[in-house]
């Protein structure tokens, strides 16, 4: 009796999983659209909703109002777009690392890559006296060099997850010491400037950042999707994957490079905004409840977290604008608490 029945059961389960994926993706996209609209609408200077819409289409319609257009097109739109892009990039970097290293705590802001970017940026601000785009370049170089150093130091007849994690943590501690040393070597205003960069913020978003980060993602996202095909085999363990013909080391190296690229470009654009990389993957998987690995869903979650955090940072307190990193840091604390309680119930992490 059973073969026909079994295949129908499997196909039913598959279509249920697919339906869940689509529902979650649809819900996330709807929430993103709402948050994006709110980001364009809310602000110190009141702009009516029809003014926002007219302003958005003014390049097509030619109906301009210089004051409103400046606020909507030059201030709010770039900020929201940058939040969207950087949130997605952080989240993808995070979920790639968490998947490859098989640990929900192993995101790039924990295992040293963000520290590399930070140390390089603080060095360029305090010692070299740089500002603006050159600091971003320094941070990018710092992130890539740190990732490379971690990978090389962890290499010993191949790379194992626990070596990458632990060596990353060791590097992070050393880089943190460098940062505190540089802090004692500078004038207070330079330290404050470096501190503002370290917290991470969208307050000083520049059009150039959007172009660079957007261009990088146009390359990195397709590369990630191509490399993900080999991941199913890798999750069965290195030996099984090799037996199945997957080129484990090359595939893993490629994915890590892509993840480092996401983290480095995003950090260069907005600073090391904490915990977006850390929370997005696990949140996406919790929403999917086992229906898929959720890489693209994690990207959507990251964009949403970043956008909503920035809205909160701008409007939570009546007369101060917090940097977005303060709000995401609080999210990280809440998330750890949630992880604690959730796994207290189920008896396992992840």
């Amino acid at each position: 009796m059973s073969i026909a029945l079994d295949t129908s059961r499997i196909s039913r389960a598959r279509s249920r999983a697919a339906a869940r994926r689509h529902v979650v993706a649809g819900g996330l996209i709807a929430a993103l659209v709402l948050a994006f609209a709110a980001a364009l609408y809310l602000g110190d200077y009141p702009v009516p909703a029809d003014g926002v819409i007219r302003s958005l289409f003014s390049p097509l319609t030619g109906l301009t109002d210089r004051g409103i257009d400046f606020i909507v097109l030059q201030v709010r739109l770039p900020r929201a777009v940058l939040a969207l892009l950087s949130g997605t990039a952080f989240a993808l970097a995070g979920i790639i690392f968490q998947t490859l290293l098989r640990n929900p705590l192993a995101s790039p802001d924990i295992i040293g890559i963000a520290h590399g970017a930070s140390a390089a940026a603080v060095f360029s601000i305090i010692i070299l006296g740089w500002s603006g785009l050159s600091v971003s370049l320094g941070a990018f170089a710092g992130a890539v060099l740190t990732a490379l150093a971690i990978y090389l130091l962890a290499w010993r007849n191949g790379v194992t997850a626990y070596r990458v994690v632990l060596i990353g943590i060791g590097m992070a501690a050393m880089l943190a010491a460098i940062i505190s040393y540089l802090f004692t070597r500078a004038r207070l205003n330079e330290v404050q400037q470096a501190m503002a960069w370290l917290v991470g913020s969208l307050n000083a978003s520049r059009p150039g950042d959007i172009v660079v980060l957007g261009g990088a993602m146009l390359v990195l996202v397709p590369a990630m999707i191509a490399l993900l095909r080999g991941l199913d085999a890798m999750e069965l363990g290195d030996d099984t994957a090799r037996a199945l013909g997957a080129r484990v080391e090359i595939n893993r190296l490629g994915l890590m490079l892509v993840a480092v690229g996401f983290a480095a470009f995003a950090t260069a654009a907005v600073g090391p905004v904490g915990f977006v990389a850390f929370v997005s993957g696990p949140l996406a998987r919790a929403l999917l409840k086992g229906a898929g690995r959720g890489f693209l869903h994690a990207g959507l979650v990251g964009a949403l977290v970043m956008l909503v955090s920035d809205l909160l940072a701008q409007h939570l307190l009546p007369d101060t604008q917090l940097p977005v990193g303060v709000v995401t840091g609080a999210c990280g604390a809440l998330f750890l608490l949630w992880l604690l309680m959730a796994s207290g119930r189920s008896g396992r992490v992840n």
Partner: protein
Amino acid sequence: MTAPVSDRGRKAARLGLGLLLLAMALVAIALLSLTTGARAIPAETVWRALTAYDPASTEHRIIWDLRLPRTIVGLLVGAALGLAGAVLQGATRNPLADPSILGINAGAALAVVLGVAFFGLTQLSTYVWLAFIGAGAAMLVVYAVASLGREGATPVKLALAGAAITAVLQSVINAILLTSPRTLDEVRFWQVGSLAGRSIDIVLQVAPFLLAGAVLALATARLLDGLSMGDDVARALGQRIGLSRGLAGLAAVILAGAATAAAGPIAFVGLTVPHVARAVTGPGYRWILPYSMVMAPILLLGADVVGRVISPPGEVQVGIVTAFIGAPFFIALVRRRKLAAL
């Protein structure tokens, strides 16, 4: 179990002699710490300053007001960090346990930052209690997070939980420092980890805690030996596991909290020294603990002396020097082998 008694006696004599030699090395490095600095002071002048103090002499005043407190703080903090690291490694059976890796330093730092920002503390001596509370709370949370899951607190999970909690605490610290330049200015010289500018008041204030912590830590040696056989064996031998871990953890928090309060967060001393001690003594905390207690101040004072002469006319703080010695050691340790639980 046929090891002849004379063999064990010989081993004890050998290790006792080694401890004596290390103590002499410690005296030598303390003397070096008194003589070295922006102004080199010869040993006989140091001796005269200590035995026949002459207030009119600048050199004598440098010795009494600057170098002597600094050296004593280095001795106390070093001993405390070495012991704290050894006790933590024993209690968690984790070769990577260290106050900085486990988030204890970040907890102390957040408490101090809160105190400076919201209660207007400016005296180093008032930091002590805050540092204690922060250190203890952070350690409890880290251990709780790492113990999640079926396999319990493995080395990797402890290190990751410590790093994650450190990241959370650091982002709170950053937020406060960003909004309060006064706190930033106050705290940035403490947060780097340094022995410079510590007065004798600090010594007097933290010494009782360090003493109590050291006694408690040394008293846990037998318990740690029991734990090192594994929970099941230790339980079968009649040891109360939870109580043993709790006592050892209390000792570590007192020691690490007091050391951090006095010198600021200093990384990696507590990590590296117990490994070197264990390589000399073999397993057995009855020897590892005293060896760690004597070796750690040698490392700390040595690093402090190096920091004083490495970039004249300025100084590199001791926390930076130990990080640059300790991080490569940590990485080498991770690379060497699979991290078997201790």
